[in-house]
């Protein structure tokens, strides 16, 4: 179990002046500006959960993760993993966690991949039998066998990421931190990685803390999402709930063989909005306020629609609008 209490991280950044003169000025007077990357957050994560940790760039996601795995020391507040503070007992905690930073590989750049795995086996003291068993399983799951003997620098990004994941799983960590594991990957590799994460979570009930900008990752994997903005948690709850709280917004796209006059259309007392573009009409409404049938009925019979498509709100839309709202507030 991971417990985060009133966690805050403040970075001090020297203010540098521009240009050559400014450079010399900076040499003699050092002024610092303080940046609060993580601002008083509290959170409890149970064993076996898959948490989606989302937020805009620079919202404080990575900083939180780095404190959770003991790389950074908090300015105030605490993180405990099964009762131990990771930045105080780095080595003890390291044995129980696995980390993948999508932007930085842990593998040794110049040597064949298999050698990196062997080193990890020694570092984490994985017994021979377990190592073999898990390697076989991971090779099959992630399909890394084909490039096992290539130096890491010759691998493609997708291959490297799969190898990095395998490396993080080698010692069967109780908690897995994935910081943007699908960044820059193609659809197939992403799919593959998601499947792997799910399988490992079910098989070993690994706790997974995932940050990502790909909302498909969240929809496919996470039962719970935590949203952070400007260092503060702005949402913590289940995926379905966030959708509900936002309203069950549906959009019906219809094609018409005439140009409608938008202000003459029936708005059902302002519950339905219309948008006409390139020969198509988008009808947007909240399914909790108005019956879908009545809107569909209206579209077919009164508007004489030819073609018809209905879509639900995506998590991406939800996140987008929540972040937008936050930005407007601040």
């Amino acid at each position, binding site marked *: 179990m991971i417990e985060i209490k009133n966690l805050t991280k403040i970075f001090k950044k020297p203010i540098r002046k521009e240009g050559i003169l400014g450079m010399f000025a900076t040499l003699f007077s050092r002024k610092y500006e303080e940046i609060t990357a993580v601002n008083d957050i509290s959170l409890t994560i149970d064993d076996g959960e898959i948490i989606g940790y989302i937020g805009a760039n620079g919202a404080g996601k990575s900083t939180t993760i*780095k404190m959770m795995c003991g*790389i*950074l*020391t908090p300015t105030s507040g605490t993180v405990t993993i099964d009762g131990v503070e990771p930045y105080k007992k780095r*080595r003890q905690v390291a044995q129980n966690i696995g*980390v993948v930073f999508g932007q*930085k590989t842990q593998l040794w750049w110049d040597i064949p991949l298999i050698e990196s795995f062997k080193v990890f086996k020694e570092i984490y003291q994985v017994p021979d039998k377990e190592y073999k068993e898990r390697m076989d399983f991971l090779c099959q799951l992630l399909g890394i066998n084909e490039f096992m003997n290539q130096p890491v620098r010759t691998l493609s990004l997708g291959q490297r990421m799969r190898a990095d994941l395998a490396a993080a799983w080698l010692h069967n960590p109780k908690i897995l931190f994935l910081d*943007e594991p699908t960044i820059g990957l193609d659809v197939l590799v992403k799919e593959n990685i998601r499947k792997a994460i799910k399988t490992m979570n079910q098989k070993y009930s690994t706790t997974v803390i995932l940050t990502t900008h790909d909302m498909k990752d969240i929809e496919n994997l996470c039962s719970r999402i935590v949203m952070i903005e400007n260092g503060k948690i702005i949402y913590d709850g289940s995926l379905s709930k966030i959708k509900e709280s936002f309203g069950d917004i549906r959009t019906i796209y219809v094609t018409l063989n005439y140009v409608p006059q938008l202000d003459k259309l029936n708005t059902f007392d302002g519950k339905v909005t219309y948008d006409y573009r390139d020969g198509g009409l988008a009808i947007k409404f909240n399914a909790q306020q108005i019956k879908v049938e009545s809107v569909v009925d209206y579209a077919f019979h009164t508007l004489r629609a030819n073609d018809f498509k209905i879509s639900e709100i995506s998590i991406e839309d939800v996140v987008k609008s929540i972040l937008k709202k936050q930005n407007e507030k601040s």
Partner: protein
Amino acid sequence: MDLMAYKFHMITWLIVTAFQVLSVFFLWVAVYKNSPHAVINGYTFKEMISFMVMINIFNYIAFDGYTGDVISDEVSDGTIANSFIKPISYRVRFLATNLGVLGAKIVVFGLPMFTISYVIFALLGFIVIESIGTFLLSLLLFLIALVLASMLYDAISYIFGVLSFYTTAYFGLYMLKETTIQFLSGTLVPLAFFPAGMYKVLRYLPFAGMAENPVLILLMRDSPLVALQKIAIAIAWLVVIELFGALLFSRASKKVTVGGG
């Protein structure tokens, strides 16, 4: 493994070292030619040449800036994050790497280079071997002193690397480290060339144990007893420096920031 991956790097260094030895050689030839004394600060010409050649080879074998370089690289590109999530001590990792590199360097470069120059100097009469017994004993003591020298260098390199947690820039620290060590370890000129008062102090600093003392042991200028004393001093310094490094790390690691992503 990395050592072999950078074959080219190693060979370039070897060539650089060879040129250094050559230029130092001609420098001292000129110095002794123009000096009215045959013995300068206790060194005859023959002793000086063998000392300078040996100490340059020694430098090449024992000094490896790897630790400080890697730490500062890890700090500047943020990969230090990966090191902090491994269940191994940050210090021990570099210690192990350094000893591995040292072993490989001794076998691949040290053995042939020292043997060839030693045999040549002995044949030319630059080095006088009084008895096989003393030779073997000083060889053994030299090996111990060599390992200690390399560990001392690595410990200092580690401290400078960790200092880059604060500065994030390493070049200045690197230059400071290199010039200090070159100057005070007897690599540029033997420590006996310093003013008498300074010499007395320098002999007991860790730097002497990093180059001059081991080479003097190899050249059998010290009695075994003196050699043992010097080794003891080096060990004491090693303990002190490692302790300081550990203390510094425990403070600095709280300050570390991870750049990028």
